[in-house]
């Protein structure tokens, strides 16, 4: 029982990180139908820039804020320089562009920063909290809280605000969006800026637990993608549920089967979802009359 609780806590913590990555996918997907595989690099940059700004003497909150803003600016630049020029290209081509961008960002990070692992001090100390016979780190609560806050914010954004609806409209029919007066170029800027900022926030929150290096982005992007597929691409609720579930699957597999198989879980989930229910847990199947 104690062991189970411990696995659940660590699963939910890791799952919250996957959920944050998946939530980042959600916005760009909702605006453009594109899965941005550079999302993991945004997480890496959030961590790395915070680490180096902190080392340079900035207080941690300021370093984190600077990292989030800088990463958001990079997201906007990615859209302007690589995605917008390919407008009209098939979605698959654009997805390949994002894979290329992620390789570029990773390479640049290796040159600008270094190849070492880096950590950050935990925000609220390192004393584990005892709950129901198991322990949880205060930093885990920060990660889980961050994922919940971003989820609530995005959910409200897409269902309660006209700007959020404009993002959905842009993805559904770009021409029609322009014709109702939406500046679709601005919507794309907003989507990439917001996605990158959410990714960077995830990086800031998780670095005290998992450490960060220039190459952590690929794995996170794939896990986040699996989480988003499991929950239903494009739906914030699905991103949150998919992330937490994937984290739990991983932790329980590592705990009760073998940690050797932990990494396989995400890919088994992707395969299972694609075979059995391609729309995911909360995704809506497209209905369209032509």
């Amino acid at each position: 029982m104690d062991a189970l609780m411990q696995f659940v806590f660590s699963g939910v913590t890791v799952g919250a990180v996957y959920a944050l990555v998946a939530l980042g996918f959600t916005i760009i997907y909702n605006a453009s139908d594109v899965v941005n595989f550079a999302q993991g690099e945004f997480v890496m940059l959030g961590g790395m820039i915070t680490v180096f700004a902190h080392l340079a003497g900035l207080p941690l909150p300021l370093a984190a804020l600077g990292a989030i803003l800088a990463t958001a600016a990079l997201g906007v630049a990615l859209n302007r320089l690589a995605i917008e020029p390919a407008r009209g290209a098939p979605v698959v081509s654009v997805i390949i562009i994002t894979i290329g961008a992620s390789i570029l960002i990773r390479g640049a990070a290796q040159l600008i920063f270094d190849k070492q692992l880096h950590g950050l001090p935990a925000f609220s100390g390192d004393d584990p909290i005892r709950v129901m016979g198991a322990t949880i780190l205060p930093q885990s609560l920060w990660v889980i809280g961050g994922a919940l806050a971003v989820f609530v914010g995005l959910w409200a954004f897409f269902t309660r605000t006209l700007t959020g609806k404009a993002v959905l409209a842009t993805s559904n029919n770009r021409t029609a969006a322009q014709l109702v007066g939406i500046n679709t170029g601005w919507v794309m800027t907003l989507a990439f800026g917001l996605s990158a900022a959410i990714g960077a926030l995830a990086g800031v929150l998780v670095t005290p637990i998992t450490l960060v290096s220039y190459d952590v982005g690929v794995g996170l992007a794939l896990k986040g993608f699996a989480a988003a597929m499991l929950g239903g691409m494009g739906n914030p609720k699905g991103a949150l549920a998919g992330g937490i579930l994937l984290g739990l699957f991983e932790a329980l597999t590592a705990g009760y089967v073998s940690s050797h198989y932990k990494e396989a879980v995400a890919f088994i989930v992707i395969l299972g979802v694609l075979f059995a229910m391609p729309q995911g847990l909360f995704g809506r199947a497209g209905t369209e009359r032509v």
Partner: protein
Amino acid sequence: MLTVENLRARYGRIEVLHGIDLTVNSGEIVTVVGANGAGKTTLLRCLSGIQPITDGRVVFRGETYVTTPAHKRLRHGLAHSPEGRQIFTNLSVEENLRLGAFLYDDDRVARDMDEAFALFPMLREKRNLAAGGLSGGQQQMLAIARALMGRPACLLLDEPSMGLAPLLVRQIFDVVTGLKALGVTVLLVEQNAFGALKVADRGYVMETGRIAMEGPAEALIADPRIREAYLGI
């Protein structure tokens, strides 16, 4: 209200509009009729700004448009209900209408939505359903209602009768006539030349990217060349 001078447009290296001149006066219903592929839809796309023009200019209420983006033209009062309806299929009927008034956030939005529901009562019944599930005729009504939510002074209406049953076609043309009473100027593009000319004040006939004929709608309906080529009478 709307003047088009020597408008040219191309897809890739092929020019499809070879210098169009056209005028729409305030309060008129003007129609552009012609066969499939004559360039009617391209003309409207150029007017609303979703298709770049290669030469000429568009003057609307004193503003000259060459590269002005679509969202700015709508702000000046030029709305476009595009070919193939192009509604937001994943969003509800009500969300489609609300987005039609994307540029506005005031009390008039709710009033305009009530007016849209009064004009098309069927939309009120289905307000919470996904727009993609509506029938073709219902989608066309939603497309027109959404364009009206943008408070147009002039509405560019592309093939509203396309693919609809005869009864619905008549209903749609009645709505077009009704727009005049609402004070909306209409530029109507149609393959259904007879139906369009019956509701219009004036008409233009387009053939392969050029204006071939123009005149009062009754004169065009009576013209033997038009009757033979477009009306099948």
